[in-house]
């Protein structure tokens, strides 16, 4: 599974990386979280307000900090 966090380094972006890591670890998923910080790459995902979470190339959340449980739901959907 490919987990990416898009953000230019704001406090919320770091928080999202942390939350995603926790969610993945708690679910026993060893994947690394890719931090996408280049503006060009962020915009290419169609995201205009950071932070955003991308799972397997699909933006699942943008412009807000989702709950850890939400992140788990998205990961679960992508496992199946």
């Amino acid at each position, binding site marked *: 599974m490919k987990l990416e966090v898009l953000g*230019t*380094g*704001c406090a919320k972006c770091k928080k999202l990386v942390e939350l995603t890591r926790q969610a993945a670890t708690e679910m026993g998923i060893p994947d690394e979280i890719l931090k996408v910080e280049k*503006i*060009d790459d*962020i*915009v*290419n*995902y*169609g*995201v*205009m*307000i*950071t932070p955003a979470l991308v799972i397997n190339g*699909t*933006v699942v*959340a*943008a*412009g*807000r900090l989702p709950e850890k449980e939400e992140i788990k739901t998205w990961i679960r959907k992508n496992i199946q």
Partner: protein
Amino acid sequence: MLAVVADWVTYSLLSLTPHSLFAGAVNFFIYDSLKIVLLLMIIIFAISIVRSFLPPEKIRSILSHEKQYTGNLLAALLGIVTPFCSCSAVPLFLGFLRAGIPLGVTFSFLVASPMINEVALVLLVGLFGWRIALLYVVSGLAIAIVSGIVIGKLRVENLLKDFVFANKGAAPEFSRDMSWNDRIQYARGYTLEILKKVWLYILFGVGVGAWIHGYVPANFLAAYAGGSTWYAVPLATLIGIPLYSNAAGVIPLVSALTEKGVAMGTTLSFMMAVTALSLPEFMILKTVMKTKLIVLFAGIVGLGIMFTGYMFNLILK
């Protein structure tokens, strides 16, 4: 009703002597803080609900079908409901331009979005009343629309960094279906987030304001910052630029200064400069535009703000 609570805390709970300077300042502080925090909760919540219907992708798709003038007007209006933080300025800017939204229309959005935000709005309503708040919104919209049209007419696309258009093409759309439950969750979360961020500044600002209200003689500042002092407006605008992150603390302070003789137009210029012209945002914008364009942008918006200040100093005598 709030006045009753404030009176009760001041005179019964703290048993301060009525009519003393100290009691007056305390009463003012309690009343204003309560009023502003309540207003903030209600208004931020309401705006967040509206906002959940208008994510930036939707705004982009609305604006990409608009041309000049109507595009500028719509961009400025939509800027009101968009949350703005300088860390989003660049991705928004790029996202808009690559979707084919004209540069001038994008600038109208970029000016209105931070200038007319819900925190400033609440503080204006709470401390100055509806009339001044409305003046602020209307002139803010006018400045955003006019500066966007001017920048559009100047045809300064060459002042953007080359990579801006290097990667043109429709950005992928992603849908976010929200139920009413999601919207309420989102609005509640956002309201709490903003309150957490600004409450300390507000208490500080209202506190200093209350002190000024109680202790500084009326009209003390009239000689320096009254309507007839020509340099007050540009000076207020300049001072406002580096104060961006503290809008929540600055407005209560300024409202107290207005009581002591600072002219209303000067006050409005100052608040507009605080919210619309921000040094950190300029630094961030350097990744997408040349310095010349940033100076041009700041200059045009700054002129608009000063014009507004002088105009209201003349009208609101």
